[in-house]
């Protein structure tokens, strides 16, 4: 196994009296796709939000290749090479499709602006299947195309770590196939990805390793196929107490 790019240690998050994430530790290896799994409300998105800087951790540490992320504001974490998509797609509705991507290019570590940036944005849109659509209004795109654009925007940052929060949710079977191929293509290019996902077909196809959470704690970690056979994981997904 290659060296860990992302190290999460003893991470906790409390909202008032509610403990959303409790003492969670795991690693994400460079160049791999790691799945962060678990039933609804298990704290996966909260973990992602702490890595990207949306929330500050209540306790614990997050490091990217030795640089501490925990405690930093989101824009500094972005500058260190973390990009993400959002559980509920977040487009910039008053901008065009190309401008959505340009915005990421203009503010990443190695700034790109002007003609060069426009060309790069067009290339990125082509990569996610939106070639020639740059001038359209982002608000007019269909749901799948908004997701594609959001991915192009995240890729524009040339992140060392890409966080995908249920990027495949809500797609029809045909779109899902396309979406899985798109993410697999990113792995070929060496992008390290941590993805939160409920679509098991995608998890099996994409993730070499998986971390499973339930009720805020980590219950399993390791090879995806083995983890999904783990009785505790099956119990968490199919429900023991209230099914």
């Amino acid at each position: 196994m290659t060296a860990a790019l992302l190290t999460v240690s003893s991470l906790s998050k409390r909202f008032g009296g509610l403990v959303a994430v409790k003492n969670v530790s795991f690693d994400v290896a460079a160049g791999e796709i790691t799945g962060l799994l678990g039933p609804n409300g298990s704290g996966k998105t909260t973990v992602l939000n702490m890595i990207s800087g949306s929330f500050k951790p209540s306790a614990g540490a997050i490091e990217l290749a030795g640089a501490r992320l925990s405690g930093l504001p989101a824009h500094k974490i972005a500058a260190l090479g973390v990009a993400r998509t959002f559980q509920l797609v977040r487009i910039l509705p008053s901008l065009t499709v190309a401008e959505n991507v340009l915005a990421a290019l203009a503010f990443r570590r190695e700034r790109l602006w002007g003609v060069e940036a426009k060309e790069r944005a067009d290339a990125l849109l082509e990569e996610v299947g939106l070639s020639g659509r740059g001038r359209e209004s982002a608000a007019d795109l269909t749901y799948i195309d908004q997701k594609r654009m959001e991915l192009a925007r995240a890729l524009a940052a040339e992140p060392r770590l890409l966080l995908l929060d249920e990027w495949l949710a809500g797609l029809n079977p045909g779109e899902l196939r396309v979406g899985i191929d798109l993410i697999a293509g990113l792995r070929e290019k060496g992008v390290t990805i941590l993805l939160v996902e409920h679509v098991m077909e995608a998890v099996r196809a994409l993730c070499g390793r998986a971390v499973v959470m339930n009720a805020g704690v980590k219950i399993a970690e390791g090879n995806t196929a083995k983890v999904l056979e783990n009785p505790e994981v099956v119990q968490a997904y199919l429900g023991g107490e209230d099914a």
Partner: protein
Amino acid sequence: MMKGAFVWAIFALTLAVLAAAPFFLEAYGLGLLIGLLGYVTLASAWGLFSGRTGYVSLATVAFFGVGAYAVAALNEVLPYPLVLLVAALAGLGLALAVGLSTLRLAGVYFVIFTFGLAELVRQLVTWYEINVTGTLGRYIFMDLGPEHIYWQLLALAAATLFITWRIDRSRLGLALRVIADDEVVAAHLGIDLARTKLALFALSSVIVTLVGAIQAPRWTYIEPAIVFNPTVSFLTLVMALLGGASRLWGPALGAVPLFLLFEWLSANFPNHYSILLGLLFIAIVFALPKGVFAFAEMHLKTRGGEKRIVPVEAESKP
């Protein structure tokens, strides 16, 4: 490109005609133009920050008054260009202090704070003048004719519009549009929200300070109640809103008719001026919440048959 050159030519020509105005106008006309240019600049500077960030500021007069007081306090001590520089620096210092402490406030809290700030600065200056200087008012005797004041204001107005035009095309302009759409996405793209807003607030405030400083010699006598009059903040705001605060020419377009209207109202209905002003404010906010530019565009488009209706989601942000 042709269109661009054409617009520049019009801009240069208008500037030339306006610059020549003092040679043809009498004192009253020039005085009117000075007041008009003052508000065109104030409204444009207001739109530069508030129109692009959505932070509604009522602190305009705080900076305007600081500029005027800097000139009143220093005009006999320092050469004029240095006086302007010190005024600008005072405005910058106040803007940074206020910005650092308040730009984290959102929505109505920011509005209330900025309104309070203007009052606070006025009370502080009043207290200082009474207790330290021993007199409330100050006289400004300077060797500047109205045409000099006019030319300075014209240059400042042109510079304000030019800077705004440049910003709208720059990375900063894109950052502002991203922030206006979604602050969470903006931060995750690497945009430093606090610094971006602070930079714009400081720039806008320095311009406002300079308007106050340049106009100060015209009054000859100033006191806090004159140069810190909150009506200046309200007029500026409503002018920018009328024209469309987020557009380059919007605030200027709103300032011209409203300034002339206010002049006429204050000359003909001096006793009912405030009431009429209030009614007008309400009418503008209700009838043209996004400004005349947006209003005209919407109507031209629906009439032209070319349907390009902006979806409602794009207008409202969470």
